[in-house]
């Protein structure tokens, strides 16, 4: 075991997801051997990202402005909202180039074992978004007509989808779910473009 600042660095790094003690030690040694400018640049980038990146006020995607790129893009179809668990799922869906609507990031899925309950997700914000949508410009032109549920095709994702259907069904919108064909038990983030594209095209109608 190292002592002092070296061990502190290893301890900090090994707290990151997916980094065990061995990789933490490898990264720490690499940083210490590299020119000072590199380590300082990394430290600055982390601090800047942490200071500047916030959650979009509308959809809860990561953003460096109050409203993210998707929500502020006038070319996107405002009648569609695709609901995902985490921000990287948006990246996966964008790669398919099949979808031109808006997004809503729940910031997770129901997971009673980890204490994540339905009220911990950004569902009430989604309902406010749907409810409030026509009033935004007064014309009703921006009204949301369809909510596409794109939670992960696993036990927690399916339960979250059921919660969404239950809570969104009373509103005057169509509720659809990505078609099956996605690998069971998987994460949306890791589905390939073709499969995900097909799932978007063949989405099932669930209510509304």
């Amino acid at each position, binding site marked *: 075991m190292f002592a002092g600042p070296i061990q502190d660095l290893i301890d900090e790094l090994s707290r990151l997801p997916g980094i065990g003690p061995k990789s933490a030690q490898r990264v720490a040694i690499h940083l210490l051997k590299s020119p000072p400018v590199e380590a300082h640049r990394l430290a600055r980038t982390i601090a800047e990202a942490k200071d500047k990146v916030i959650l979009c006020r509308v959809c809860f995607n990561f953003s460096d402005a109050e409203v993210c790129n998707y929500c502020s893009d006038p070319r996107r179809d405002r009648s569609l909202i695709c609901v995902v668990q985490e921000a990287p799922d948006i990246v996966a869906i964008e790669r398919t180039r099949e979808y031109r609507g808006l997004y809503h990031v729940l910031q997770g899925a129901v997971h009673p*074992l980890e204490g994540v309950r339905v009220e911990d997700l950004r569902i009430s914000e989604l309902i406010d978004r749907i409810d409030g949508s026509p009033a935004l410009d007064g014309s009703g032109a921006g009204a949301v007509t369809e909510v596409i549920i794109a939670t992960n095709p*696993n*036990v927690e994702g399916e339960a979250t989808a*059921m*919660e969404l259907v239950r809570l969104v069904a009373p509103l005057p919108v169509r509720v659809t779910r990505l078609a099956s064909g996605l690998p*069971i038990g998987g994460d949306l983030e890791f589905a390939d473009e073709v499969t995900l594209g097909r799932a978007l095209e063949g989405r099932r109608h669930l209510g509304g």
Partner: protein
Amino acid sequence: MRVNELVLEDFRNYADEQVRLAPGLNLVIGRNAQGKTNLLEAIHCLSGLGSPRADNAALVRHGRGAALVHADVTRVHRSLHIDLEIKPGRGTRALVNKTAVPRTSALTDVIVTVFFGPDELSLVKGSPDGRRRFLDELVVKLRPARDALRRDLERVLRQRNALLKSLRAADPSGVHAELEVWDRSLCRSGAAVAAARLEALRDLSPHASKRYEEVAGGGSLTLSYVSSWLPEELAGSISDGTAEIDASSLEEHLAARIERLRRAEVERGATLVGPQRDDVSVRLSSQGTMLDARAFASQGDQRTSALALKLAEHDLLSESLQDEPILLLDDVFSELDPMRRAWLADAVRDVGQTILTSAEPLALETLRAEKILEVREGRIDVSG
């Protein structure tokens, strides 16, 4: 299907050992605790279902970080190479022809085994847990993709139990809309698991009664699915093939039962109904009377029915996969009387590759082994 060559590195008491196996009957002899069962266990691991008797940590040789199993196998005229790396706490990594498979259960597509050891002799006598595992593994051997069904059900149960516990702590008498979502998840995945089990049991039944009749000479054996939520008549007509298996009707039956138990479940903070509590009953008839084998049969009859079930599993898999699974018999002869020994010796003749261990000298001429291997302190020698 068969294992042609097997290499074990740091697996149990084998440091580095290589063995070639015959396509037919292989007899493994040696005193106790020399490594005979470990050899069968390694072959069982090749089928993707782990060890039949221990967790992964026990498979690694003392003081080593990982156990390795390499094998050249044949499946329907195709030669394949399997590499397994078993690391305690890290799970098992598998390669087929040097390509990683997504999860080890995918190996069931390549190798299927039927294992019978002293523990399996109490399959009929023992707890429901063993019979559920027997049936669930049969489901996966028949249709490897169905492995996901049981994994999903286990996950739904863990989530639902966690929710029930927190509801009990917070507000035991309230209205729990959140629970409904997990009720539906439980119904959906519970019905899927039950449907798969019912199908496997229905297809196993005729083979089991045939095998039992061979040895019991006249009596008959009946299998049925026992469940607190599935009406007995429905389960009965599914097993005799007069009713179709309809997952949505199973879902409704399970939902109705959950509805009735809702309050008790919140009070207890646990799921009280579902396929995780179901069982298989084995009934034997002789001279016109039917008895539950678990409660009423003699130990000899219980063992005979357990053997009949495992041989029936082999028959069903041979028929369904159109290729004979590898039969692993661990020290079962010593536990049987001469009459049942003769029957088993006869049954394992011409059933594809069989690996049979024994600590005592057997009547070798009745078995007609193609190859005899002798195991001594983690070394394997060909002795015939």
